[in-house]
Structures are given as structure tokens and as C-alpha cells.
């Protein structure tokens, strides 16, 4: 009989026998288990971009977040460290697995950002790249004969590293976030936060939040995408903490008999995962443990859809060849573009 077949399965598929034979039980809720199975089989994709001047600990933070050497720097150990003359966009992917859940993680690095003497329009190549991923997805989506599962290279999340000046956002920070927050989920973090005392940190955070508000920059989680009251409550708490003051490390030290990730200095050891020391754990929880799916959903159902609308309407506007602002966000001419 049917129950004997179930006993041979390693993981439980149906409810236990008792519930199943209960009068009236249909088994609709078994679909959750079916979805879980499907997800485990297919695996997940996550594409995260890091933006910030060199030396702000971007690679280290990625390695700390994903507890392995996932950043470009870690892979290319022999190459000489040099600051590129223009902004480069470098993507590196790794397959990681945890408790049977497989993930293809792609870290997109942007060396050269903010490192030049003249950083005008430094946001443009990044905007172009992000839109190029949307374009690639769109092209595949509108194919007649299309793949069963369209490979997703769209940037789900962009971590923007703010140097710990302690004062306020710099013009380059505002420029970048103002333009990019319209096309991608931006999570700003205060890098190398162990150089700020708690008071300095709080003051800085407040100033940053004020600057963001004043410039109408919508960072993730965006207020307008809160789905319901419960969502809003959770997200408000997060919004009150942004930007997260983080410290990264891939070195373990012995603290109180435990081996912890940290940075050892003469005056003490900064524990990365200690929430009284820095906010790394909150960032990790947000990005990975609680909101990863939501981040991907906002990317696909809002940012991508907006790109698609712009792109499909593009052919209907300016039929007589007037200079258009392309959907990739950068104008034909070398003029600082207006927002679309």
C-alpha cells in the first residue's frame, strides 16, 4: 500500500499517517513541501555588487558575509594591486552550499570607483552595467524559443561603502546613490566602522540619514514597497538602523575561550559578530537570512519591470531621431543626464 512507499524516503514528504487519514484532510498544505523540494533541486542565484573607493574593505566584507573566499581579490592572489585608470566592472561567481541548499553567488566588484582625481560621472559605467543585465534578461525573455530557466545576472543588491569620515555624505556618495537607487536596491554601509566611537557613529548615521532624505534617495528597504502593516513594522526598524556600521574580518581570534572572527588591535579585539561592537550581524541577517528573497523580488518585479517599460516605450517615443536618453541611463551626448 501507499504508506509503505513513504517509509523508504529519507525526508518526510507527506504529513504523518495520522493526519493524513484524518477525515476531512485534503492535503493542500503539502504544496509547501513540494515547493521546498523544487527550490532545493533548482538552487538559488544571488548577485551582489560592491561599490566604494579602494581600501574600504569591500572584499573582506564579502568574504566575511559568505564565510569563504568569494571576492575577486581573494581569488587573484598573485596579481599586483593597482588602481585602474578607469572604473572596471569585474564579476566572479562561486557555487556554495549549506544544508542541502545550493546557491550560485556572484560578487560584482567595481575597482577604480572614486579613485580618480576627476570622478565626474563615475556612476555611469555602473549604471550601464546594471541596465545591460536587465537588457540581457529582457532579450532572453522576449525570445520565441526561450530557455526553461532564464539565467539571472541582474544585480539584486548593491552595497555602497561610505568611508567613516564621521561628518556627512560626500558629493560623490550622493551623486552615486541618487542615480543608482532608481535602478537597483542600494544598501549603504559605513565601512571600517571600528574607527568611530559609538557616539561618533550615531551622529554620523543621523547625518547620513538626513542627507539621504534631503536628496530623496530611496535605499533598501524602500518605503513604497512595504506590502502590509507587518512588513512596514519590520522594515521601519531596519530603516532606523541604516546605514549599518560594519567591520569585516576573515581572521579568527581567541576571545573568552571562544574562537571568533575579529580584528585584533593593541587596545582590544573588535568582534565582528558582536552586535555591541558593530552591526555586521544585522547586515548579514538582512541580506541573507531574512530579506534575500525579498531583495530578489523587488529587483525582478519592480526595477526590472521599470526598465522593461522604459525600453519597450523607447521605440514609440522620439520617432524622428531626436537625441534620446537611452534606457541604459546614459545620454547620447556627454551631458549630465536628467533623471528618467
Amino acid at each position, binding site marked *: 500500500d501507499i504508506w509503505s512507499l513513504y517509509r523508504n524516503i529519507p525526508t518526510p514528504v507527506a504529513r504523518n499517517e495520522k493526519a493524513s487519514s484524518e477525515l476531512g484532510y485534503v492535503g493542500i498544505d503539502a504544496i509547501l513541501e513540494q515547493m521546498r523540494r523544487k527550490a532545493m533541486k533548482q538552487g538559488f542565484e544571488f548577485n551582489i555588487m560592491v561599490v566604494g573607493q579602494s581600501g574600504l574593505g569591500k572584499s573582506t566584507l564579502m568574504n566575511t558575509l559568505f564565510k569563504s573566499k568569494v571576492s575577486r581579490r581573494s581569488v587573484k592572489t598573485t596579481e599586483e594591486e593597482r588602481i585602474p585608470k578607469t572604473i572596471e566592472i569585474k564579476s566572479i561567481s562561486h557555487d556554495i552550499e549549506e544544508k542541502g541548499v545550493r546557491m550560485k553567488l556572484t560578487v560584482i566588484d567595481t575597482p577604480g570607483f572614486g579613485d580618480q582625481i576627476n570622478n565626474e560621472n563615475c556612476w555611469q559605467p555602473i549604471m550601464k552595467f546594471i541596465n545591460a543585465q536587465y537588457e540581457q534578461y529582457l532579450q532572453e525573455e522576449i*525570445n520565441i524559443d526561450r530557455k526553461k530557466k532564464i539565467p539571472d545576472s541582474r544585480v539584486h543588491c548593491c552595497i555602497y561603502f561610505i568611508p567613516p569620515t564621521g561628518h556627512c555624505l560626500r558629493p560623490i556618495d550622493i551623486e552615486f546613490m541618487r542615480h543608482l537607487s532608481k535602478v537597483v536596491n542600494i544598501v549603504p554601509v559605513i565601512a571600517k566602522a571600528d574607527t568611530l566611537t559609538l557616539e561618533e557613529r550615531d551622529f554620523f548615521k543621523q547625518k547620513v540619514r538626513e542627507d539621504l532624505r534631503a536628496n530623496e534617495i530611496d535605499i533598501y528597504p524602500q518605503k513604497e514597497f512595504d506590502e502590509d502593516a507587518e512588513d512596514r513594522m519590520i522594515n521601519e526598524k531596519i530603516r532606523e538602523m541604516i546605514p549599518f556600521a560594519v567591520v569585516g574580518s576573515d581572521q579568527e581570534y581567541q576571545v573568552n575561550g571562544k574562537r571568533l572572527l575579529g580584528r585584533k588591535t593593541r587596545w582590544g579585539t573588535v568582534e565582528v559578530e558582536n552586535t555591541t561592537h558593530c552591526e555586521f550581524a544585522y547586515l548579514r541577517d538582512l541580506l541573507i537570512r531574512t530579506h534575500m528573497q525579498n531583495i530578489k523580488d523587488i529587483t525582478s518585479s519592480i526595477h526590472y519591470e521599470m526598465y522593461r517599460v522604459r525600453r519597450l516605450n523607447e521605440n514609440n517615443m522620439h520617432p524622428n531621431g531626436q537625441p534620446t536618453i537611452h534606457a541604459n541611463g546614459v545620454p547620447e551626448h556627454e551631458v549630465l543626464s536628467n533623471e528618467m
Partner: protein
Amino acid sequence: MVEEGEGARGVPLSGHVGFDSMPDQLVNKSVNHGFCFNILCVGETGLGKSTLMDTLFNTKFEGEPTQHNQPGVQLKSNTYELQESNVRLKLTVVNTVGFGDQINKEDSYKSIVEFIDTQFEAYLQEELKIKRTLHSYHDTRIHACLYFIAPTGHSLKSLDLVTMKKLDSKVNIIPIIAKSDAISKSELTKFKIKITSELVSNGVQIYQFPTDDETVAEINSTMNGHLPFAVVGSTEEVKIGNKMVRARQYPWGTVQVENENHCDFVKLREMLIRVNMEDLREQTHTRHYELYRRCKLEEMGFKDTDPDSKPFSLQETYEAKRNEFMGELQKKEEEMRQMFVQRVKEKEAELKEAEKELHEKFDRLKKLHQDEKKKLEDKKKSLDDELNGFKQKKTAAELLQAQTQQAGSSATLKKDKERKK
């Protein structure tokens, strides 16, 4: 842009990261949104389609029994909101009313195919929209088609073969033997074998329960061997032992719906709902819908690469189509304008004609009037003449009378005078 690590290499994790919660995150999102499941029941009248649905989902669906007096095959669709623990399901059950009732059944399958295509079309239209809301779209595409086979015990009817052949590339078909309590166990085995071999020899692709996931591979492949499921449906409850069970009570015994020795109802429920509901939805989307979409778009003239093997984007073709359409529209507009001008001309000519007629009529009438007038004048004149003549006579007569009177009166006066003397 430089892409490194193309074939992503694996790296070990040195600690707990936490993305193992992703399946949970995904499931939570789905729970919040709710699920959609659409079943199509195809079968002749009286095979117990409605009853089986009631039994499967353990509820009484429709109020009144369906009317069976319409010509042709009608598809009646009903949507229900079901909930079990925290899962909300929007279930749509579509019934074929009047299937197999006609004398000539050649076109019976057509309305079914049309219905399925209509749902695909609706989804395709939404997908092609510029501003679209796919994540909140109510999916009406048919995820599973339960094909009810009459329990004759012999073989499939030609109507069944023809219909299933037309449907197998459009929907997941799960054939079931309806009212199977009419067949004995031995006959049932033979019947199932006959049906399966007929399906195979006619190239009918029925839905196979997936065996690629090791968790369910065994149960699914076993169940595949039990197709078509011999089912019995019932919403009546009978006391067996000390439990109330759903059953059909006969004088010679009771058929228990959920007893696997009596019928395959439990197997059907397991496969359809508890194990493969998600796969049925996925197959519908990734296989049947994609096929429909590909055919439809090719039909409309879109192609992925043109003969010069230059990649044509749908967008460019869309643009070309749009121009073509605008051109056609303009042409039609021009035609209409010409027709309008023509019509106006014609009408003008008509009116001119009418005007001319009116003038002529007017002239005629005028002349008539003048003639009449003249006649009347003549008459008047003659009457006047008469009158004058009469007057003259009258005056003459009066004069004569007056003269006579005067003579008479003077004579009288003379007489009087003479008397007086």
C-alpha cells in the same frame, strides 16, 4: 566588463552563513500570495465529475446540478477559495457540460481546446503588456486535465482517443476510470492494460509523475504504473466499524472511497494534490504554455533569426509589425475617406436630382396655378360681364319702372286735382 569564474567553482564555507533559509523565505512569500490551481474535468455526462471533485476536496462545490440541455459542449468554470492550515488555495474547477451527448461528436473536442487556448492567450497578453503585473495575475491556465473514461470494461471509445490526442500537447492529462465500482477487479486489470496499450499505440502523451527527484521518484514511478486510476466518488458517509467513512452503499456491500483495496481514489489524491501539484503547475508553465507561446508568436510572424542569420529581436519585429499595422491603418483610413467622398458625391448628385425635380414640380404647379388663375379670371370676367349686363338691365328696368310710376303718379295727381275741382 570582464567576467571571471564563468563555470562557477565551488568553495567551502567556514561557518554558518544562513542562506539555508532561502527555501523558507520563498515558501513564506508564496504563502502570503496564496496559490492557484485549475482542474479541467472532461468526460461524458453522468460519469460523476462533480461528485469526484467534491470528494477530492472534501467539500460540496456547486449548489444546483448543471443543466444538460444546451447544444454543443459547454465549459463551465467555477472558482473556490479553500484554506488548509496557513495555505490559501484559489481552486478553479472547469467542467465539460454535454460532452459526448451529441449525435455527431466530431467537433466535441474543439470547445475544450479553445478554452485551454483562451487561458494561454490571456496569460500571453499579460506577459506582452508593457506595464504588467505578472506577480499578482490570477493564473487561469489549466494545470491538470482529468479525463473520465466510461467504465465499459472493454476499451477506449474513439471519442476518448481523438479528444486526448488533441489535448495531450496542451495540458497535463491524467486519465481516470470513472464509477469504477461497476467493474470487477479482474476486469479492471484487463481494462487498464487495454487502455494503456491503446494510448501508447495512438501516441497519446499522458502526464507522467516526475521521477527525477529522488525524494518522490519511487512513489511516483509506482503510481505511474497504476494509471489510469480507477476511482469512485462519494460525499455520503457510512458507518463502518466505529468510523464514519465516505462510501457507496449497495445491498451486496459497501464501496469505501478511501479504501485502497476498493478503488484508486487515495492514489489519485496523493498524486494530484499531495505530491505533484507544484510539478503540474510547473509543467503547464514551462512546457505547455511555452509551446503555445512559441506557436502563437511564430504564427504572428515573429522570428528569432531572419534568413540572413542576423539576430532579430522581438522588439525590432514588434516595431516592424507596428509600422506595418500603422500603414494598414492609414490605408484603411484612406479607403474610408475615399468611400466617404464618393458617398458624398453620390448623395450630392441625388440631392441635385431631387432639387431639379422639385423645381420642375414647382414650375408645373406654378403653371397650373397660373392656368387656374387665368381660368378663374376669365370666369370672373364673364361673370362680371353678366353682372354688368344684369345691372344694366336692372337699371333699365328700374328706369322704366320709375318712368311708369312717375307717369302713373302724375296721372293720379291729375285725377286728384280734377276731383278736387
